[in-house]
């Protein structure tokens, strides 16, 4: 039967209004929308019950088997679109409706499926209606039925039921004679099963199966010498680039002109881990680094903090909404699975898209339009973060043509946990032989099969549907509440999340501490029958954690889970057998030695060849007035206000938010990052900041990395953070750096990777910033429409730092008229790769990228930190995109004050860089290490004394008059006012900034 729920008065449905607004804009014709929620039930539900349980008692009406589309008050629609999920895709609405019916009646509820019907009003032909349908569903996970009003009158109706996943008979494991396969057969196997393994790796697998010792061990347990598909899939997931970071652990031969080749054995060990190890003796706050799901630090007594960032690029390219949600809830689980479990206290997101106004002909067939990707990802972040009750504290949007193939969706989370749990250090955990292997949370389905290997390949037209999963924040929220309760009762001994690779990865990793695990696939709870054993093992169905529970605690654990409505199942037992043993259909279906699984992967060899960029260097044409240039920069999507988008993120939940994403008198100016309180009864807090500057990599990725670290650390200082207590994460998103016929410049991309690692190390060592966790995504290329679109090499640095008194946090906005404005740090003349260059047309090339003098900068930062701590520096803003002029404009907008400033005395080499007109360098250079700071006139002496010996220059003062005038040697080079600055800064991104609020 069909239950339909809708608002009795169409005018009350804000969702419909928002959608009508969007469709009207996109199709440039006035469209009205009515929304009807549909539930298809396998058994009768009375209207009274449905009205009570499924609808708002006052504002909505419910009808059973009586279509709303025929009701007189909805008359006049021209098209009906009904959207339902494809078989096997998680239908959260139906799950909740079922639970609501069950809770209401105390009995089990009928099977339900949900659908959503859109009645479209307006003069729409079939094509236009089809375009509307395309904007309200994603064909990857949903189906849409389109019915015209005329057809409706002739009796056309949406389906009475939607298909359920096909149920197969109990599938048996398949045997694969890997030990006897030739190279071609192996490669074909890898391709057909989406294993993403190289011939070297396949060879190692073959050799293991061909080893007589393996055959003997198998025979003893009644297994044939041939591999089972269960084993091969587990090996492929465990050995995927996603899980094993083969490129970061490769042996790299690095060449550059004029130097002998150099061998680097593991970028990770050489540049990442070594950095932290060298800093560790003077960074006593480090607790657990690189070993767990997230890095753990002790910034404040009594509690530990952890932080992690992930990317979810490939899924977001296919299903922007689901991809982004899953990215968030996935990284939340990383934190939840760190140590014995941390409570997430903030989310971050840094999103890289192609410009939303990219002309359609430039978007290759098979790829989603940038605007749809932006809107979908954004909506995913809104739902994923908000519904989880975790504040979205900080983030950024970047726009660049190279993200047309794959968007980059960086999702980060920080968490807090007590120092001890059950009297033991909370950051340590171990499964022991005899512990139960327990899975909690959602059930296993076909969603997300092969996510780990899929993300290790380029995106193409044949990318699999099943690789996409959809997270449900609410199921996870309930699981989180339960877990934190169980943690405090010390009811489990180890925990990790089920992310990439599913149970094969989580239990496979946990088995390392006990020495083995027996996994019983027959015990795993399934969403629907018919999954092959290997699918159960590698499925990435969401909202699941794996735990080790002492059998003595199992009854208490299970009882609490039942009370909290969380499903908990024993799916195996940890052993010390040295093997992963897998049972399916009552028999042994897999036997893999731990040693082979975790250490049998051959080390990759990778050539890396660097050649300097030799960016053409020209100079901007001299001009008398640079006002328009500044306004163009402020209006450029990378600099323009993201307020309409950011306002849809909840950044206040948990009541921690001291420095918010938007700041100033009218809360519409950008801040440099987040400051969060940690607890209600102290003033202790943390800073959260980012550094990301992919454009600089056009010149040299080493500069890009140095500048990214500088940007993150500088923002930490600008927010009032402690210079000595901060830790960083590195997230690399690279185009494929493995040279091949299909990827001829792979060795150059590998060299870019090497140089980025060096830049990262240099800056982190100079600033004393240990790297505590990180992640890399190495195949950010798309092949579509006969083109390869690769992302610019992109490094995101996420910083979490300590702050002892959040009350002292400055912000970016000037506090009032009459303040003295200073520029700290020296200004160089490089204009290459800057936002200024980007706004000067596609052919503008101004040479090399900006840099920073790390040693000088550090001294300045420490001195500024003293001025902030002494409450002398009243406002503080870092100079980044758009340079000094953009930073000054933002600080003025925040404070709603004008400015008169003279830039002739700016310290630095900007005048001597050779540009015939020195103004652009003074205004728009993006040299690192610089701030705009304002102080009260009476603090001048104290301020200059605190900063003495460092590069500091007083440039002007704020005014009550709204004029904004920057002079150079007495000549006005920018002359405008707050209104003009505001108009430029609030230029809607992609024509319309996320809609009106």
């Amino acid at each position, binding site marked *: 039967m069909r239950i339909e729920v809708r608002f009795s008065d169409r005018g009350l449905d804000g969702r419909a209004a928002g959608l009508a607004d969007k469709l009207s804009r996109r199709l440039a014709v006035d469209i009205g929308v009515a929304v009807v929620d549909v539930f298809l039930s396998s058994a009768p539900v009375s209207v009274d019950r449905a009205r009570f349980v499924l609808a708002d008692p006052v504002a909505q009406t419910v009808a059973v088997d009586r279509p709303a589309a025929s009701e007189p008050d909805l008359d006049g629609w021209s098209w009906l679109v009904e959207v339902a999920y494809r078989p096997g895709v998680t239908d959260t609405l139906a799950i909740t409706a079922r639970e609501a019916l069950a809770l209401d009646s105390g009995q089990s509820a009928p099977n339900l499926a949900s659908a959503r019907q859109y009645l479209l009003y307006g003069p729409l032909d079939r094509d236009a209606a089809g375009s509307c349908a395309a904007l309200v569903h994603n064909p990857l996970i949903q189906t849409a039925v389109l019915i015209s009003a005329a057809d409706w009158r002739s009796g056309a109706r949406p389906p009475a039921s939607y298909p359920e996943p096909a149920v197969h008979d109990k599938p048996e494991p398949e045997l694969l004679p890997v030990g006897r396969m030739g190279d071609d057969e192996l490669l074909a196997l890898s391709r057909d099963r989406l294993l993403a393994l190289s011939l070297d790796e396949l060879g190692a697998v073959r050799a293991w199966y061909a080893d007589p010792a393996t055959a003997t061990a198998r025979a003893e347990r009644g297994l044939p010498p041939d591999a089972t598909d269960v084993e091969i899939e587990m090996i492929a997931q465990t050995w995927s680039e996603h899980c094993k970071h083969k490129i970061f652990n490769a042996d790299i031969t690095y060449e550059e002109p004029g130097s002998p080749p150099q061998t680097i054995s593991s970028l990770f060990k050489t540049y990442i881990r070594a950095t932290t190890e060298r800093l560790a003796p003077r960074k006593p706050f480090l607790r657990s680094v690189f070993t767990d799901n997230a890095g753990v630090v002790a910034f404040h007594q009594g509690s530990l903090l952890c932080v992690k960032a992930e990317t979810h690029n490939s899924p977001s390219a296919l299903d922007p909404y689901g991809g982004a949600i899953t990215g968030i809830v996935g990284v939340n689980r990383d934190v939840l699975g760190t140590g014995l479990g941390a409570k997430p206290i903030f989310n971050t997101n840094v999103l890289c898209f192609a410009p939303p106004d990219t002309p359609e002909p430039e978007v290759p067939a098979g790829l989603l339009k940038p605007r749809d990707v932006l809107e979908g990802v954004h909506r995913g972040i809104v739902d994923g973060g908000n519904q989880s009750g975790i504040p979205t504290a900080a983030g950024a949007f970047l726009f660049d043509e190279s993200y047309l193939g794959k968007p980059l969706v960086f999702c980060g989370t920080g968490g807090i946990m007590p120092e001890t749990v059950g009297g033991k250090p909370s950051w340590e955990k171990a499964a022991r032989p005899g512990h139960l292997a327990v899975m909690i949370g959602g059930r296993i389905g076909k969603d997300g099969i092969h996510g780990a290997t899929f993300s290790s390949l380029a995106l193409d037209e044949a990318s699999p549907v099943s690789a996409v999963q959809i997270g449900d924040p609410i199921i996870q929220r309930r699981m989180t*509440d339960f877990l934190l309760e169980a943690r405090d009762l010390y009811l489990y001994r180890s925990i990790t999340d089920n992310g990439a690779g599913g149970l094969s990865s989580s239990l496979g990793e946990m088995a390392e501490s006990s020495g083995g695990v027996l996994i019983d696939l027959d015990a795993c709870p399934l969403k629907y029958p018919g999954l092959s054993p290997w699918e159960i093992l590698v499925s990435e169905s969401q909202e699941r954690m794996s735990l080790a529970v002492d059998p003595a605690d199992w009854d208490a654990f299970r009882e609490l889970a039942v009370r909290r409505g969380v499903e908990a199942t024993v799916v195996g037992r940890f052993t010390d057998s040295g093997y992963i043993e897998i049972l399916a259909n009552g028999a042994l279906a897999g036997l893999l030695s731990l040693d082979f699984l975790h250490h049998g992967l051959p080390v990759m060899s990778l050539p890396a060849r660097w050649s300097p960029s030799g960016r053409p260097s020209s100079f901007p044409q001299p001009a008398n007035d640079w006002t328009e240039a500044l306004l163009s920069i402020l209006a450029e999507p990378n600099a323009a206000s993201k307020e309409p988008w950011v306002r849809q993120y909840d950044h206040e939940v948990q009541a921690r938010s001291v420095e918010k994403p938007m700041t100033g008198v009218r809360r519409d100016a950008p801040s440099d990052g987040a400051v969060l309180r940690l607890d209600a009864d102290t003033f202790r807090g943390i800073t959260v900041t980012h550094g990301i500057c992919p454009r600089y990599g056009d010149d040299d990725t080493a500069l890009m990395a140095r500048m990214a670290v500088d940007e993150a650390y500088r923002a930490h200082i600008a927010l009032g953070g402690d210079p000595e207590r901060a830790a960083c994460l590195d997230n690399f998103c690279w185009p494929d750096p493995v040279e091949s016929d299909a990827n001829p410049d792979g060795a150059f991309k590998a060299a870019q990777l090497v140089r980025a690692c060096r830049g990262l190390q240099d800056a982190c060592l100079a600033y004393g910033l240990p790297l505590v966790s990180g992640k890399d995504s190495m195949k950010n290329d798309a092949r579509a429409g006969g083109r390869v679109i690769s992302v610019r090499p992109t490094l995101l640095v996420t910083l979490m730092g300590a702050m002892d008194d959040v009350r002292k946090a400055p912000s970016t906005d000037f506090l009032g008229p009459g303040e003295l404005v200073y520029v700290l740090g020296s200004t160089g003349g490089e204009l290459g790769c800057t936002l200024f260059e980007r706004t000067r047309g596609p052919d503008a090339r101004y040479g090399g990228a900006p840099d920073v003098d790390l040693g000088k900068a550090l001294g300045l930062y420490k001195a500024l930190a003293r001025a902030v701590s002494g409450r002398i520096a009243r406002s503080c803003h870092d100079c980044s995109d758009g340079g000094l002029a953009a930073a000054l404009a933002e600080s003025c907008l925040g404070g709603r004050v004008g400015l008169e400033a003279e830039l002739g005395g700016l310290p630095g080499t900007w005048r001597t860089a050779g540009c015939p007109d020195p103004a652009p360098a003074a205004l728009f250079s993006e040299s690192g290490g610089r701030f705009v700071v304002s102080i009260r006139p009476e603090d001048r002496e104290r301020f200059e004394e605190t900063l003495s010996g460092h590069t500091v220059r007083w440039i002007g003062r704020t005014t009550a008059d709204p004029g904004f005038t920057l002079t150079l040697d007495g000549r006005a080079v920018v002359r405008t006012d707050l209104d003009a600055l505001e108009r430029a800064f609030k230029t809607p991104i992609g024509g319309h900034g996320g809609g009106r609020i």
Partner: protein
Amino acid sequence: MSINAIIVTGYGINADAELADAFKMAGAVPRRAHAADLLADPAQLASCSILAFPGGFSFGDHLGSGLVLANLFRSRMAAELKAFVAGGGLVLGICNGFQTLVKAGFLPDLDGNGQPSVALVHNDHGRFVDDWVGVRFEPASRCVWTAGLEPRLLPIRHGEGRFVADDATLGRLEANGLVALRYDGRNPNGSVHDIAGICDPTGRILGLMPHPEASIHPDTHPARRRPGRQLLGLDLFRAAVRWLEANNPA
């Protein structure tokens, strides 16, 4: 004699920890109780004088904000809750908690029959919004939570905060002093009469969309660096505790 507050948690409620902090800072003794445990043992109410429903996304708001939780409380605890209020207990619903109280028929309950009579629907612009907005408290309201409070900024964050009611209901709410607070200046969601919160005829049940529990520290106020003392949401909890101290001398 301490003033005990029970904060409902679980099922996707997510602003319970800071709400407990708010009550603690106001001088009450908060205890977080999972909704399942409370519904299984409603007698727990006897141990407290405040029952609070925090914000969040109970049951994901999949069927409409607060709806599933509302039905649970309506079908399993309505009588106990009524007796609790009749005995002088205070009830608070913030955001999702407000939606829950309204859909359960606990608020405004003009006729005392527990029938829902008003609604909170999707914001008129169809989007979730996070901001700080001006709020003023009705001097004529009989609400004990908001008595004597001056206007101030409070944080909002919701997608379904548009208060609607038919004219007759609206007239009765206004005439009886049941509108406790309104948006002051900008109306962020299209609520009729700028209504941001209402109380029941006893004045002891308050539901509101703004989040006073997210404004309990001066340093999280958006004007934290600007001159003058910023008024906080904390005052609302203090008002409730003061009222209980004066009216429940036991």
